[in-house]
């Protein structure tokens, strides 16, 4: 999905009659502020992690691209937050379709394999995009439309709607699963269960999903659908000291980096694990080890605090939403960001399997940064809409 496709024509932006001033006043500044501080501060750590990666070339290569990614993310968030509510609903099926096309592109010659997962698409200009990141947005929007489709008299979605929602979600989830992108699949599943639950669907749906998911996982494991390396990747965190395998090595080095940071950290550019490149991809999936090592417990805790503020504001927006559609969008986004944050920091700390998901608003990587800011834009959009209604 390219930037231009995500940009609607001008007549939809700011089409509402409210004054421009009130737009800025009505924004959730706690939400925006936390995300801004997080992204800005992340640049320093991306720089620290990457400046020795391209010795001989431009040491600020990753930093510069990271800053550009943040800037593009901000623009995307602005656009998404101002999109007309009805338009968002009307175009959800189109976005859903585009997301699936995007995932399928991975199987064409444009697809690229990075770190064992065939989940990237090569786009002109030397950039790669990860369509599954955008698919998260699409799932949130399409499920919100379908699950909020009940008639006024009904207190809960009809079974038909729930079944349709699950069916629609299953397609992108299945495709991403085929790409070996386990981390993203787990996040998408969490989003689906959360949204079905929050939609007010009957309890047996929620319970069924939870039990069914667990059963499916066990069966897949037992029947060998899960490949050995996937198991190795998922279990290496249990006992990382046993084998010097690559996955276990990553987990061990990450823990040495964070543990060595202590209360105050080693200081910027001073972390031996970070600067010695002991932790792989530490500008992206393992950025939290850089924060932990160089900024210590203080820095790491502030990072978690800022992410928590985002989740708290998101939750408030969900609770305060005047109608089900907005609440579902907000709840889906919150579940997504919450689980992705937990999964990422958890794998950095050695309590979650290493699945290669980035830390929202922090990790280096264009698609993830764009998706994070689009998510934020969606939350702001719901909030603006609810204020307009009240």
């Amino acid at each position, binding site marked *: 999905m390219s930037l231009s496709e995500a940009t609607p024509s001008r007549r939809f932006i700011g089409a509402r009659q409210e004054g421009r001033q009130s737009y800025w006043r009505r924004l959730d500044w706690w939400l925006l502020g936390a995300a801004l501080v997080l992204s800005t501060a992340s640049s320093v750590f991306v720089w620290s992690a990457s400046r020795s990666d*391209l*010795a*001989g070339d431009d040491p600020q290569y990753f930093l510069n691209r990271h800053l550009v990614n943040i800037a593009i993310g901000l623009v995307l968030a602005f656009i998404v937050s101002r999109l007309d509510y009805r338009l968002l609903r009307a175009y959800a099926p189109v976005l859903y379709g585009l997301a699936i096309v995007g995932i399928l592109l991975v199987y064409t010659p444009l697809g690229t394999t990075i770190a064992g997962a065939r989940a990237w698409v090569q786009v002109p200009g030397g950039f790669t995009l990860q369509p599954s990141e955008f698919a998260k947005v699409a799932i949130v929007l399409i499920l919100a439309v379908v699950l909020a489709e009940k008639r006024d008299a009904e*207190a*809960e979605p009809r079974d038909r709607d729930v079944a349709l929602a699950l069916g629609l979600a299953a397609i992108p989830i299945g495709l991403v699963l085929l790409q070996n992108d386990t981390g993203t699949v787990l996040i998408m599943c969490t989003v689906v269960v*959360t949204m079905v*639950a*929050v*939609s*007010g669907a009957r309890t047996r749906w*929620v319970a069924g999903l939870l039990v069914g998911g667990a059963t499916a996982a066990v069966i897949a494991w037992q029947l060998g659908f899960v490949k050995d390396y996937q198991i190795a990747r998922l279990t290496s965190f249990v006992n990382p000291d046993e084998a*010097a395998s*690559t996955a*276990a*090595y990553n987990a*061990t*080095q990450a*823990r*040495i*980096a*964070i*543990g*060595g*940071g*202590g*209360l105050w950290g080693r200081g910027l550019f001073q972390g*031996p*694990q970070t600067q*010695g*490149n*002991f932790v*792989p991809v530490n500008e992206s999936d393992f950025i939290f080890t850089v924060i*932990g*090592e160089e900024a*210590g*417990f203080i820095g*790491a*805790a502030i990072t*978690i605090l800022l992410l*928590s503020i985002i*989740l708290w504001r998101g*939750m408030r927006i*969900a*609770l305060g939403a005047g*109608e*089900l559609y907005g*609440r579902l969008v907000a*709840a889906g986004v*919150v*579940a997504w960001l*919450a*689980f992705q944050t*937990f999964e990422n*920091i*958890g794998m950095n*700390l*050695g*309590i979650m399997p290493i699945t290669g998901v980035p830390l929202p608003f922090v990790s280096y990587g264009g698609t993830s940064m764009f998706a994070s800011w689009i998510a934020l834009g969606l939350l702001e959009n719901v909030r603006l809409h609810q204020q307009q209604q009240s």
Partner: protein
Amino acid sequence: MSDRSHLRLVVLGVLIISLIGTLVARLSYLQLVVGEEYAAQAASNSTREVITPAVRGLILDQRGRPLVSNRTSLVVSVDRTVLAREEDGGAAVLDNLARALGVSRESIDQKLMPCGSEGAPPLPVCWDGSPYQPIPIAKDVATETALTIMERRADFPGVSAQLAAVREYPEPFDANLAHVLGYVGPVTQEQLDAQGDSADPARLRSRDLVGRNGLEAQYDAELRGIPGITTLAVDQVGRVTGTVSESEAVAGNYVVTNIDAHLQQVVEQALAESVDRAREEGDVADTGAAVVIDVRTGAVLAMASYPTYEPQIWVGGISTRDYESLLRDRALSMTVTQGTYAPGSTFKAVTTVAAAREGYDLTGTYPCPADYTVGSQRFRNFESSGFGPITLQRALEVSCNTVFYRIADEMWLKGGGLYAPQGAPDPVAETAAAFRLGEASGIDLPNEAAGLVSGRDEKLAVWEQRREQWCADAKEGFSALRDENPKLAEYYTALAKENCLDGFRWRNGDAINASIGQGDTAITPLQLAMAYAAIANGGTVYQPQVAKAVLSSRGEVVKQFDPVVRGEVQAPEGTFDFLRTSLAGVTAEGTGRVPFEGFPLDEIPIASKTGSAQVFSDNSTTAWFASFAPADDPQYAVVMMVTRGGTGSLTAGPGVRAIYEALFGVVDGIVDPAKSVLIGAQPSRTLPIVRPDGTPVVPEATP
């Protein structure tokens, strides 16, 4: 909205809070409770690189026959840093080693001396690699000797015997090709310093071998490959704790040349026989060169320099004895690209083009007297014989100097004569420049000579450079010589005075000398071959190209070298046709006739020009034979040259004939393309095939 929805949102909130709580708890535990333990682990973490050297790429001929390959050899090396720790500085160890290897202690010492240190032997023998790396001192050591050294470690501290990949020269058809192939040697400290702190995995490391000359140097970056690097994480006691990163070695690319090994052998043999022939006639014939060019592409099909040497002697470090003999024989220099010589009468072809460009009638008749007088100077014809009025074609056939003297004199006068202003026309020099004579041909081999074409501008430049010396000499008057030989001193002084005053003037005598390739003009045999190739193909000057393509070690085409056009020689229509006909006449009934008696010229007309350029410093002649064929549809240009070698016709002519016989498959005067040394009697138009395992597919007839 239902209360159920609200309730479930609250549950979600609680779940999220507990997840965050878990993260904070785990973070606190790692950083605040057991943090110090991890800090200690971080301190003991370090990495170690294990390097798997890349296999150096092969050099192939145009049919895929390996010209340079690799083999393994037991190499004995000495680590000086370990020796220096011995009480006697390692003297006893080296004595033992010399005995074990059966060589003199001195020969080992010489190889261990860093270049530039006191008493060190000259460059390739002395050590100019990194001071910290073990120095190879013996290659192809017998297995028992190597075992002895490795078993008696106590007697041989700092000495190691290891299997190493070394270059091998299969010499298909006994083609030697030493100068073109070049050789490899240890990387120098300067090369290592020059690349700075590069993190490029392909960067040079202190134990690497790099190309030092020839194709090995020219295409070093292609041939070298990328070593495999395994970065291991090790703790403070050196225990490997994990693999940080791993990359496999990428074998070097293969360089496919335009050289045909079979033709190369024929050219080398023909050159050596020409040298022998000259020596039988009492000439010194100290050096020689021969080259075969594809006139349609500039591809170098064969190229030989005499004398040559066995490329094998460089493998594992050259010995002092070998190196001295190379120097004595002057075998190291590649005569064909590095030697510059007066082209003599072969240059008349260029002067003819200059005359045509100046409007001379190529079909006209010109007087050919026995001598041509300018002022007080008399310029003689070769052997002082006159032919009366003759056509320009006949003038080329019999190599009449005086015809060209007159034309050169006239053009000189027309260009402004003695007092011509700066930038005045200089047709011969300009035409030579259009043929790219007097400048490096751009061949893909290092250290090519540029040569020189004499002319008005060139003379001025020389004068500006040497005026001071000339004027000082004129003033000083050669006093050291005066007692011994007052007459010679007088002569030298007068000469210096004249040079000092107006040595910049381009005189008609200079123009006359230049017109027949004498005077200051000195070019490489390769440049002459490229000029004749241009005449053959209608004026296109190609850049000579030894390499044809680069293949990966799995056989994929990495790059192909397309013909490079360096320029077009502009000449009136018919000029090149005239030259093709006239030069064919040289072979049929001119100075080139004798060596080609009995050759089927009616089937394969040969265009040629002989040259016997005078070298005044040692009163000898440089024998030239420049040619292309077939004259009516030219495909090959062949040039052979022997210094101090007598006449071009008798010394070099038979050699060139042998080359054409091999090219076209002429045996006993009968043309049989099947007997050509080239498969299918043509240079290969396709690239050789290299199998995925790296072995090239070689034609069946390869010995």
